[in-house]
């Protein structure tokens, strides 16, 4: 039990950060018109592609003769980048269709 408390207090800054970011996410999302649900989901999907940064860091540490780590890491980098690029491009394609049109009426 003490160990857990120690771990928590050692990472208190991170835990504050975590909780505040959760609340921020909730606030940012409220009051979204239904027509934007799909692009929003897609955009959020692209943003969690930031996990690719972790994959890069893992690869930077892996020694060049550790083939297991290298191949898994390489796969992670490719998949993470797929998430980022594919996510943003798909979202952009969706939103392109919402471009302003001359209003009638």
């Amino acid at each position, binding site marked *: 039990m003490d160990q*857990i408390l*120690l771990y928590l207090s050692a990472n208190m800054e*991170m835990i504050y950060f*975590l909780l505040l*970011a*959760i*609340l*921020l*996410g*909730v606030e*940012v*999302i409220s009051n979204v*018109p*239904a*027509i*934007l649900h*799909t*692009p*929003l*989901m*897609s955009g*959020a*999907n*692209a*943003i*969690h*592609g*930031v*996990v*690719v*940064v*972790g994959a890069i*860091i*893992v*690869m*930077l*540490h*892996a020694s*060049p003769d550790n083939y*297991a*780590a*290298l191949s898994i890491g*390489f*796969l992670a*980098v*490719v998949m*993470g980048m*797929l*998430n980022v*690029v*594919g*996510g*943003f*491009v*798909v*979202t*952009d394609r969706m939103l392109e*269709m*919402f*471009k302003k049109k001359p209003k009638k009426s």
Partner: protein
Amino acid sequence: MMSLPILEITYLVASLTFVIGLKMLSHPDSARRGNLIAAAGMLLAIIATLGLYQSYDPNKLFNYGLILFGLALGTVIGTVMAKRVQMTAMPQMVSFFNGMGGACAALIAIIEYQQHPIATAGFDGALLVMLLGLVIGSVSFSGSMIAYGKLEGKIKDKTLPFNQAANMMLLLVLVGLIIYQLFGAAYPVLFYGLFVIALVYGVLFVMPIGGADMPVVISLLNSFTGMAAAFGGFLYGNKAMLTGGILVGSAGTILTILMCKAMNRSLTNVLLGAFGSAGGAGAKSAEGDQTVREISISDMAVLLSYSQNIVIVPGYGLAVAQAQHICHELEKLLEEKGVEVNYAIHPVAGRMPGHMNVLLAEADVPYERLQEMDEINPRLANTDVVVVIGANDVVNPAAKNDSTSPIYGMPILEVDKAKTVVILKRGMAAGYAGIENELFFYPKTRMLFGDAKDSLQKLASEVKMV
């Protein structure tokens, strides 16, 4: 060397772009710029990590060539896939990319575990973070792939025997294994066992959920991947990963709840309800006459041309038939004849909330024509003709009248109040919820069978001649 502060500041900027981007994505005017801003922040974070990470770690860093190659490969494949995909296949594309992110998070956890010294005593926080990243990432990956397969039509809805019981057991095993590794013994074999069980759980988790509920599932898995990314950020103390991951984790959860609300169901109900496989329950088939009345193309052309106002209800059938352009064509023809045409968009029409808006926007239908459910419902009683194109469950009166129906309580477009309803449909098959629709048998209802695009084309040329 000042590169460490620069790296930290870059991550701060990237985090800010994620927040601002997400905020802008929730307003129609700024959405596109918001997406680009978040993308720019992401690019910044990636480049800075490549160029400046050195400063964290005095040791030699390796593999720059391989990393760049991986990034390039991911960029090319991602761009090609995203550019090529049909508008109708958007939801499964999002699901696919989401699965990639989940897999990435799980793989990171695996490599970190291999290099992690096994703690001999005490609580190992880093191990907990790895285990959670592994499990959530894997569930998100295999679940997303199943959701992708279902929307592509490659995987059918299927409830395995004792599926819910098996899911419950697997979940307990997952939690048990995590706790055991933390406080008992951390054997590598248990770690890899956890990986495999998490993958299986993802499959079984999504398998029994009906096609109609896939949007909710994708949104939920989206927030899972966000959490997995955040655990990765925790592991490295990387603030950009933390912000991006947590934001998506919480925003995705809220979005999931919003979607469930639109269907007037709870999340538990969606996940455990096995909605799509309920069989042919419902539809009070005993009472009333059971014949459907068909309408010919030319009759319908006359009916539409001499109406005052028409409301079109688009559904997934419109998307499948790629009929959005011809639908807009017909709408313009009718407008020229002085008929008022509006579109009624149910919040969960299609396969994702907002799916219909995206499709109709593609066909240049003006914003003002698209009416949300709450706006249009009070006006339906004064509508001459409602044309339902490939929608079913969202106009099923059973949601209001029949408390035994699986969709009872879901808000619907009350098209049964209109003077006449014409339903374009391929055949008499039930909707995604797998239930009958008594609306088809109402005296005021007319059916027009056939492919939506084909029917609308014929209809448009008939209308021209009226």
